[in-house]
């Protein structure tokens, strides 16, 4: 076993545990358990907010899969990855102040709370809760598998033991600490990612003999590697541009990101997060994917993309530094997993149980439910990840694109378009998910429709559905201040 790599990673896990424990003490003294457990009491500052968004968003794919593809594809894939810079500012600017104000007005703790209050419809709530539970549960399981594989390849532990180690660490602090623990550990994990990628990039450039040298090696091997069109010349401008929707602006529709846009303390935190988020997202994405490309001349012939980053780190860095640097992808995976876990459990406890099963549940019951559901979910994911069934992998394919197509318009137009109503929202969600799944199969058979990523057309169709159904059925302007009058009357 490789102890010099393992020890820095264990130290990292222990620090994360400590943060979880510390937040749980804060949680114990809290007066509003639900808002605190699932939302950190709406008091995140700018730095933590930016980091938790970046860390939640940056998953196994940005740290293992993405750089692995850049290794095969060359600069075209780095170009594609840089479409993600936009998420750093776009999500917070678009949802922005209106979302923060409305979320407080509705007393919303989850994205579904917001949709429930805005559309006043059981169908909308159940449909959203169902999509979140199914799709994000699968996405989460896929991340666990990634995390366990990473530990396995670093430490030489068996897959089962690696998965167990990973599962226990995630479960302990999510179950105990809730959203604040997740957001705080995200901040630490984000910082680890930031420094880790920079150290590794520098090490790779030095061991490749400088950037010009690496570039010459790439051109000698295959000149296409330094073009925007990919190693085989098959990355079209339309295809790469369509990633602006999948990993750029469409991210607004992801529930795990949207919930963060209602968790900040005040406008000043939001302003700071906008700037920090843009810098950090761009910096991490640029570094990681450049590392992937630069690794090619240094370690040619790596077959499995996910192994590029671990292997190049072990090759170019002293073992203990590699341990710290590889804590970065570990951090990315853990921080995505913990947010998803919390989100799925909040959908079950808050959106379904409290709304429809037992609205008058006592605080003690809610507490026990929250811990219990989070724990049980984690255990189920663990068992599934031991031997992942095909269905899980299948559902995971739809997790991001499908959720974006489903939620983007009900959230964005729900905020800004007064004519939006529940018929539009339901039609939009159904159209988004169904057309996404249908197009997915079409694209596998026939190649990408219009040469763009699967997500593009469903996002457009769900926009049309939202507008058409809102205007055609029961057209009525929504009054954003209505709930305020009601509160005033009661007062």
């Amino acid at each position, binding site marked *: 076993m490789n102890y010099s790599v393992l020890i820095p990673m264990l130290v990292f896990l222990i620090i994360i545990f400590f943060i979880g424990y510390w937040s749980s003490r804060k949680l114990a003294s809290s007066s509003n358990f639900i808002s605190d457990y699932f939302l950190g009491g709406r008091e995140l500052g700018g730095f933590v907010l930016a980091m938790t968004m970046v860390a939640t968003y940056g998953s196994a794919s940005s740290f293992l899969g993405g750089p692995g593809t850049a290794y095969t594809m060359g600069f075209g894939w780095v170009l594609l990855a840089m479409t993600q810079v936009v998420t750093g500012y776009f999500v917070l600017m678009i949802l922005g*102040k209106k979302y923060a104000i409305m979320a*407080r007005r509705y007393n919303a703790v989850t994205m579904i709370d917001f949709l429930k209050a805005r559309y006043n419809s059981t169908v909308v709530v159940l449909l959203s809760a169902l999509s979140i539970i199914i799709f994000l549960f699968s996405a989460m399981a896929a991340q666990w598998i990634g995390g366990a594989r990473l530990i396995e390849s670093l430490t030489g532990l068996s897959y089962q033991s690696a998965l167990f180690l990973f599962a226990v660490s995630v479960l302990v602090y999510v179950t105990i600490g809730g959203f604040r623990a997740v957001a705080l550990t995200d901040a630490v994990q984000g910082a680890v990612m930031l420094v880790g990628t920079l150290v590794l990039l520098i090490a790779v450039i030095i061991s490749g003999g400088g950037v010009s040298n690496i570039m010459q090696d790439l051109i000698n091997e295959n000149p296409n590697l330094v073009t925007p069109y990919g190693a085989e010349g098959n990355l079209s401008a339309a295809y790469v541009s369509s990633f602006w929707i999948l990993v750029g602006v469409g991210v607004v529709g992801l529930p795990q990101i949207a919930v963060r846009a209602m968790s900040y303390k005040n406008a000043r935190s939001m302003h700071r997060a906008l700037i920090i988020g843009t810098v950090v997202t761009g910096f991490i994405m640029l570094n990681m994917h450049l590392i992937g490309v630069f690794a090619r001349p240094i370690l040619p012939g790596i077959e499995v993309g996910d192994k590029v980053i671990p292997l190049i780190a072990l090759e170019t860095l002293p073992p203990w530094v590699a341990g710290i640097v590889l804590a970065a992808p570990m951090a990315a995976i853990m921080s995505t997993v913990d947010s998803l876990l919390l989100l799925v459990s909040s959908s079950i406890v808050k959106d379904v149980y409290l709304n429809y099963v037992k609205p008058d549940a006592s605080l003690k019951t809610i507490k026990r439910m929250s811990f219990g559901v989070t724990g049980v979910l984690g255990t189920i994911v663990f068992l599934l990840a031991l031997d992942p069934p095909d269905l899980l992998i299948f559902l995971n394919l739809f997790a991001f694109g499908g959720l974006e197509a489903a939620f983007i318009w009900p959230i964005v137009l729900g905020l800004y378009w007064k004519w939006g109503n529940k018929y539009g929202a339901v039609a939009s969600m159904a159209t988004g998910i169904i057309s996404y799944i249908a197009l997915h199969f079409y694209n596998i058979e026939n190649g990408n429709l219009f040469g763009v990523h699967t997500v593009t057309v469903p996002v457009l169709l769900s926009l049309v559905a939202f507008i058409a159904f809102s205007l055609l059925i029961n057209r009525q302007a929504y009054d954003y201040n209505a709930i305020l009058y009601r509160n005033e009357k009661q007062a």
Partner: protein
Amino acid sequence: MKETDWRFRIAHREAWIGLGLALFNFVWWFAFAYGLGSRPVEEYTYILGLPDWFFYSCIVGFLVMVVLVTVIVKFFFVDVPFDEEQEEHR
């Protein structure tokens, strides 16, 4: 009491700014990447060792966005309270 919340005007304007920034970001990214990048590889020049299209599209483009976002947030974004005035602080 029927007039629009004053904070919404600010919120709406800032959302439009976000959309504008994203469009600008896209045009910059696309124009340099495919404008410069579609030449034959032999004609590429290299800046700091990186191909010129990539340098302008991704590195300069990223820095431009950071500066733009910083300037716009500092000078055009308004600090507004999120809680309702008559509401007590939780």
